């Protein structure tokens, strides 16, 4: 998550309280790669998301 030296956002505190599997999912979604994906087509985005979920929850 955010690696800047700015104070810890309230949302990060909330994130840390979530289940590890949920944290992993959110982390994957919010990465820079994911941001870049918005420029690609949506089918690719859906597939990546499904893959994230299936890989992280076995």
């Amino acid at each position: 998550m955010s690696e800047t030296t700015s104070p810890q956002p309230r949302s990060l505190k909330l994130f840390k309280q979530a289940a590890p599997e949920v944290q992993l999912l959110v982390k994957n979604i919010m990465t820079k790669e994911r941001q870049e994906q918005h420029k690609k087509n949506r089918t690719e985005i859906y597939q990546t998301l499904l893959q994230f979920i299936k890989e992280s929850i076995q």
Partner: protein
Amino acid sequence: MILKKLVLDNFRQYLGRQEIVFASQKQKNVTIIHGENGFGKTCFLNALLWGFYGSDGLTKDLPKPEHIIPDTVREQSTDPSADISTIEISFKHGDREFTLARSISLAQERASKGQNTDLNLAIRHLDGQTTNCDGREAQKIIDSILPRDLRELVFFNGERIDHLAMEDSAEKVRDSVRGLLGLKLIDQSIADLMSNNVRGKLKEDLKKNTDAETSQLLEKQTTLETAITEKKGLLTACRSNQSALAEKMSAINAKLEANREARELQQRRATRESELTERQKALQDLEKRLGDLLAADGYTLFCSDLIQRGKSITHKLRAEGRIPARVMNDFIHDLLKAETCICGTCLPKDSEIWKMVEEQLTKAGDPEFNRAVGDLDKAIGVIEGSINRTRESITRLVGERTDLIERISHIREDLEEIKEALGSKDDEEVHKLEAQREKEELRRHDLLREEGSLAKEIETSEAELKSLSAEIQTKQQKGEEGKKAQRRLQRLEETVALLEEILQIESEDLRNELGKEVERIFRKISLHDYRLDLTDDFTLRLSKSVPGSSGLVQVDVATSTGQRQVMSLVFIASLVALAQRRNEIPTILKDLHGGDYPLVMDSPFGQLGDEFRAAIAKHVPALAPQAIVLVSTSQYKGDVEHELGESSRVGKRYILRYHAPSKRDDAKESISLGGKRNIIFKVDPTEHTQIMEID
């Protein structure tokens, strides 16, 4: 995004190839383009919008938006595929430099009514390499830099932005904040996760691996979700229609204010309408307070008999000496148990003396009973006190309510009178505008009704969905695959819930930051004791400090079109300032950089009263990293010329010279700027606009 250069090649009234370089240095960040009304200011703004977004980006007030090719070229064309209009824009965003070129041929324009264009985008990276892309890919990159629904925050007609300060635009304001400050990613991720392609697929997996009963529940859940999605779509459309309608109304109001016959009445109407909104809001707040009071303490008004009965019971008990009891039965029980009196006399069990002490139990008081009567006494006191307080509060609130209703009714009567007075004006334009206004007003009422009913339906369906989802989650899956599918679905839903909460929290944090920025910028330009706030529900509110019983108090003020224009401008400038230092604001989003955005303002001084005109002009250079101002002589002369003319931040200055076969009677041939005469009109058989740089 800092604009470097714009090239117009046969774009509407801009014939031939013309280019304009914008001031883009930190200390010289203002470009002024002088243009009289009808000489091409709005067309210039639209050249930028068309370059970035094609026909979808054009402003609503642009006549014949499907005609991009200049009329002269269209009429004389011999080869429609060779007659082309092109816009080239060079700009910098972050550490990359971009040059976009959008073009349309006459053949394309005719075939698609101006919809189909060719787009190319060249990106020069930090390492000196250049990449190129076309069409949709290029458009996606442009949209990722400045989403098209946020274009009016950067490129706007100053006389049409006042609607941002209206209550109807709260949703739009919230969206703008999320859009320009990077939170759309969370919004989009939630939508992606909940889509049929992700959550839908996981549900299918579960359906395949579960029993018939759960499968049926899942089916029901899908049907309900589809219905909710449809209704939410309708609600969004309804809200965006309201927002578009507010914009339309604002354009009609501006036209009425510009009309000499209607000006005074329209200004009075704007103030009264604003007062009406304030009072209606105050009435809603008051009715809520009244409702809360009745729910919490209303019962006390019906307790008088009960209080009297309680009082007579406690009074009787006191008269009989039963409360407070002189001796407690606990004490006598202890003596009997210990078989010893407090004086030391022995009390053998069942002896004469023991029985005499036991008899005292009938006279002794019970501590529980004593406490209960004490509590009753206390409760009677509290309720009795509350009866009076509640009665007084209700009387006061009902009085205030009557007063407010009366004031609202006066304002309404006044508005009706204004409407009638405007209707009786002998002016065709005023009649037309009034008819449009009435039509839009009726439509607004319909939309409000529709919004209320949709919101209620969604609320009911969501409650049903919640209990259904909970029921599905409690169903125990037997097989391994079923368990896995259920867990994945559950985790996805938890992820969505978490993202929704994060979005909420980060929006609130941004709103707080933005509120501070709004206050800071407004303080610089406000000459009076006004104060501008961004409320919790993303509404801009103007207030003023007035003397109250305990010192100065802030009261909301009814706003004029000009004031709302200032409020909107301050909001946009604050948003741009926040976008610039986005990386300093804590967020969960990784690698979110700050971004520079320019402000391209067509006629920003139009409706401003004298109180704000000079202040806005003075602060234009500080409103954004780059400011491009399109202004007519009448708006420029006086305060604006004084403030901007003295600013060392103006780096580039241009005039729009209009060529036409004949001059309008009221149009000037030349204007004087900085002591120099500049020709702004030339007789020419071909009508067109020429951009001329001046010192």
